[in-house]
């Protein structure tokens, strides 16, 4: 773009002649970069600024009125929002507790080079290519109380009686389990693949010498695989944490935050405020914008805390 100007501005050094030869084509470079810059400005920078513009407004999509700090005080006293924050933490915690060990175990098993390992790897990874909206839908059918296949299977195994089917999506006590199962199914393949890739870089010699020293499978895992995988594990945990806090698409399809507000994670709550898809409710965009910033700060805070903890662990180990 402004390339030419800069180079003529520079004092003439011996290298400059070579540089100029190298740096020709500034105009075409600018033109080639332009589309991505425009996309960046429109799709990322502009919405970001737009949000801050409406933080102090009451805006329903047609009319915006300035309300000062009223949105802030409302957020402070909004039990529903803070409840959704707690729900988000609960959901993210549950998801992480299951998804990381599962991905790790499956990666270790795949690393044993059993017959058909690459096929299994493909199968485990498959759910991640399916849209989370569709996977949410598939699981609504599976978890249906009356005619869902999960209750059907449990009944025919004699685990539950046909008179008392489990209300996977309607019972406040078990709905979190249903949501967790769905999200673990949809996501663990990603993390498994990171672990598998990380493990292939661990030299076979290390395993061989540990075998000669008589290490059993558990010792091999905890003394060799896990420590050597630590850098990958740290990255994966980071991705998994931010990912879990951002999830709401599949939850929206599966439970729509219900029953009641049991699975109403914060980004889902915000979505409903902004797009008001329930009949009779009005979009509350200004308030939603403020909550979005709060949510982003919460996620950012969690990420920072995680990074600090990870660094501390580095010092200790």
């Amino acid at each position, binding site marked *: 773009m*402004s*390339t030419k100007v*800069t180079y003529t501005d520079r004092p003439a050094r011996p290298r400059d002649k070579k540089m100029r030869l190298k*740096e020709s*084509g*500034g105009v*075409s*470079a600018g033109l080639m*970069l332009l*589309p*991505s*810059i425009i*996309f*960046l400005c*429109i*799709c*990322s*920078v*502009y*919405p*970001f600024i737009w*949000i801050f513009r409406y933080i102090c407004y009451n805006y329903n999509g047609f009319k915006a009125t300035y309300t000062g700090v009223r949105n802030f005080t409302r957020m402070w006293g909004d039990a529903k929002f803070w409840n959704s924050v707690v729900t988000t933490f609960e959901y993210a915690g549950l998801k992480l507790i299951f998804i990381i060990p599962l991905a790790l175990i*499956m990666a270790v098993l*795949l690393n044993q*080079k059993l*017959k*058909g390992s690459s096929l*299994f790897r493909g*199968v485990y*990874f*498959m759910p991640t*290519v*399916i*849209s*989370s*909206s*569709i996977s949410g*839908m*598939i*699981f609504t059918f*599976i978890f249906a109380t*009356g005619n869902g*296949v999960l209750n*059907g299977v449990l*009944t025919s195994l004699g685990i539950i009686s046909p008179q008392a089917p489990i209300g996977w999506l309607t019972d406040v006590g078990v709905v979190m389990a249903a949501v967790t199962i769905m999200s673990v*199914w949809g996501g663990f393949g990603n993390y498994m*693949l*990171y672990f598998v890739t990380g493990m292939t870089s661990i030299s*076979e010699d290390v395993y061989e010498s540990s075998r000669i020293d008589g290490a059993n499978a558990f010792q091999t895992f905890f003394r060799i695989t896990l420590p050597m995988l630590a850098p990958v594990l740290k990255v994966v945990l980071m991705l998994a944490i*931010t990912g879990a806090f*951002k999830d*709401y*698409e599949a939850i929206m399809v599966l439970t729509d935050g219900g029953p009641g507000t049991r699975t109403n994670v914060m980004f889902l709550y*915000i*979505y409903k405020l*902004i*797009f008001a898809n329930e009949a009779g409710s009005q979009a509350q965009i200004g308030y*939603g914008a403020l909550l*979005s910033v709060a949510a*982003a700060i919460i996620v950012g805070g969690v990420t920072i805390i995680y990074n600090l903890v990870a660094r501390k662990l580095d010092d200790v180990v």
Partner: protein
Amino acid sequence: MAKNESRIVYSPTQKAIRAVLWVVLAFFAFLVIFPVLYIVLGSFKENAELLRGGSNIFPSQWVVKNYTDAWEQANFAVYTKNSILLSLGVMVGSLIVSSMAGYVFSRKTFPGKELIYSIFVMFMFINVGSVSLRPLYELAIQMKMNKSLWAVILFSIGGGQATYIFLCRGYVNSVPRELDEAARIDGCGFFRIYWNIILPMLKPVMATIAILSFRQGWNEYIMPMVFTMTNPNLRPLTVGVNLLKNAGDGAAAWNIMFAGATIAIIPILIVFCCFSRFFMGGLTAGAVKG
């Protein structure tokens, strides 16, 4: 890998353990694949059978009528067309935008490059959720772009481009600069070098980006849903199927929904089966660079 396997000799106990592990893997694979099997097989069941439930996932009677119904009455022909358009649009756009930007970021030094680059990185990590769709939606209305799928395609390209640019930049970095210089001596300009030299060498990473962005477009849900709220004829499959679910009638049309969900996942699964190494390769390459 095959060589390694033949070298290692396993004792009988080890063999037994490995057999058990294999069974564990196979059982788990079955669990993972079960939801998909259930939906695909269920789409051939009669509605009455679906509503009865039970544990048998195979249809007692195979019916294809669900598909013809979904295709003709439930508007799935239009949804499918939209989905194809959307995913191809996102794919082509992402390929063009990211390969050019990746090339410039790799080969060019200019003032402010680091700044622009860090803005790209920054917005990969800032996540404000769905709220950013609102300004884009209002923008699309102002630009009179809400009557076609173009707005969704463009915003989807914009949303995903950062990752692809990093992939491209990393790959162009690995292309030796001597090639550029040789081409420049032969009289190629900056763009010609990209077009004749770099782009042909980018094939592997372009394949990865093509696959990933195709999936992104195919699976896009919230944005097309918001953008097509008043425009049923622009809905892609993800939105169309889910609206069927919310349409009310309770469990009335499970067979149509099963067929619709199957139509929505089968193409992407076929793409995955054919190109799984690009899916998996792209993921890990992105992790290293991103």
